[in-house]
């Protein structure tokens, strides 16, 4: 019943659009010739099955065991082919499990249920959410976002989740709150990286309250229509697609609103390489490599990196009066 209502609302929303459409080219739009053949991404048979399913279902739906249904929000079309699920779930950065990319097997040891997320600090109504309760309460949708890693590789992922602003609306930030801080779980029994007791665990990331309120700021609970796997930051991670990937806190247990700018994990380790803002900019190089291009996971294709990862239309205004800040690295 809920599915039908959501679908009807989606159709009605689209019917309200004006009859005449003005096609505006987004900065990330690529010529058709640059799009990876779908068969290469999904495999020929899988692509056929998926295509048939999409024809039958109309708007894309993310419906698999454990993850409530979620409509795809087409406002954020990525302009690139979706990266194969296998690539995204087997090539991961998750420092608590190691510095290499093959942590996915080790991450399976991280229990995903029960999972409690605290939202606290400068809010009117601090809350503790059971993750499944959160999944039921929040307005889930699917968004296909580009992700640009600071290490100059990139991928395109259909995430399922909800806008951070929806969560903040529940807890009601105080007017004095200026930053949102995200903290990852610390589970020493399954995270070998925590043996390095000299590091400033828990992994902490953050953004300003204005960035948090931007429509692109997304709390992720699923990918490819399934619950978010632990190696990708399950059961709950954060994602701001115009920033480098390390800004996305994974396996979150605490979200805190504060008036103090947080000192983030990588900022404490290598401040000359990883700053607080970390917005994507192809013209500002990492001290040890260029950021002008990125390698697409799966295809290995190299493509130019775009300012704000191509999302400048949505976020450039956030930084209009911050010229004195180190916005790009």
């Amino acid at each position, binding site marked *: 019943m809920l599915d039908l209502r959501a679908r009807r609302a989606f159709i009605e929303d689209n019917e309200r659009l004006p009859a005449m459409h003005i096609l505006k080219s987004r900065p990330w739009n690529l010529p058709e010739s640059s799009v990876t053949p779908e068969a290469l991404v999904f495999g020929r048979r899988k692509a056929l099955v998926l295509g048939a399913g999409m024809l039958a279902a109309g708007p894309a739906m993310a419906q698999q065991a454990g993850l409530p249904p979620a409509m795809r929000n087409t406002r954020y079309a990525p302009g690139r082919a979706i990266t194969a699920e296998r690539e995204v779930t087997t090539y991961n950065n998750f420092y608590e499990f*190691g510095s*290499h990319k*093959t942590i996915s097997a080790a991450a399976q040891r991280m229990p995903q249920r029960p999972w409690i997320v605290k939202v606290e600090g400068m809010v009117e109504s601090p809350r503790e959410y059971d993750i499944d309760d959160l999944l039921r309460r929040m307005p889930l949708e699917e968004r296909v976002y580009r992700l640009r890693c600071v290490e100059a590789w990139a991928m395109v992922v259909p995430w399922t989740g909800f806008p951070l602003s929806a969560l903040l609306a529940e807890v009601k930030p105080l007017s004095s709150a200026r930053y949102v801080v995200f903290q990852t779980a610390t589970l020493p029994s399954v995270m070998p990286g925590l043996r*390095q007791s*000299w590091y400033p665990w828990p992994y902490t990331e953050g953004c300003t309250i204005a960035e948090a309120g931007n429509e692109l700021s997304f709390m992720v609970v699923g990918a490819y229509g399934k619950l978010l796997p632990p190696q990708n930051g399950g059961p709950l991670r954060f994602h701001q697609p115009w920033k480098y990937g390390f800004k996305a806190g994974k396996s979150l247990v605490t979200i805190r609103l504060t008036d103090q700018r947080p000192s983030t994990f990588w900022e404490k*380790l290598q401040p000359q390489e990883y700053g607080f803002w970390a917005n994507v900019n192809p013209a500002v190089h990492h001290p040890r490599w260029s950021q002008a291009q990125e390698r697409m996971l799966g295809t290995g294709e190299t493509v130019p990196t775009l300012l704000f990862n191509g999302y400048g239309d949505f976020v450039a205004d956030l930084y209009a009066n911050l010229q004195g800040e180190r916005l790009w690295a």
Partner: protein
Amino acid sequence: MRLIGLALLALAAGLFFMFGSDPLGALLFRLDSGLLSLVQAGVQRYLLPMLWDDGLLPVLEAPAWIVPLLLGAALTLFAWMRARG
């Protein structure tokens, strides 16, 4: 060799009195906060992930004075045995 061994033993004693049981990793992190993450990335990405977890990490978790103590003792003993012919 004997002199190097004795110098390492003196270093071990100094580290013990200055830092007690602080791990070697913590000491290196204080000296250069980015050093170990770079070494870890090099070892785990280009050599073998287990080499870090099972080889280097136990050394870094040990008190800072352990490594110079063991090296110093070994060199001093070796030099003494060579001197005895």
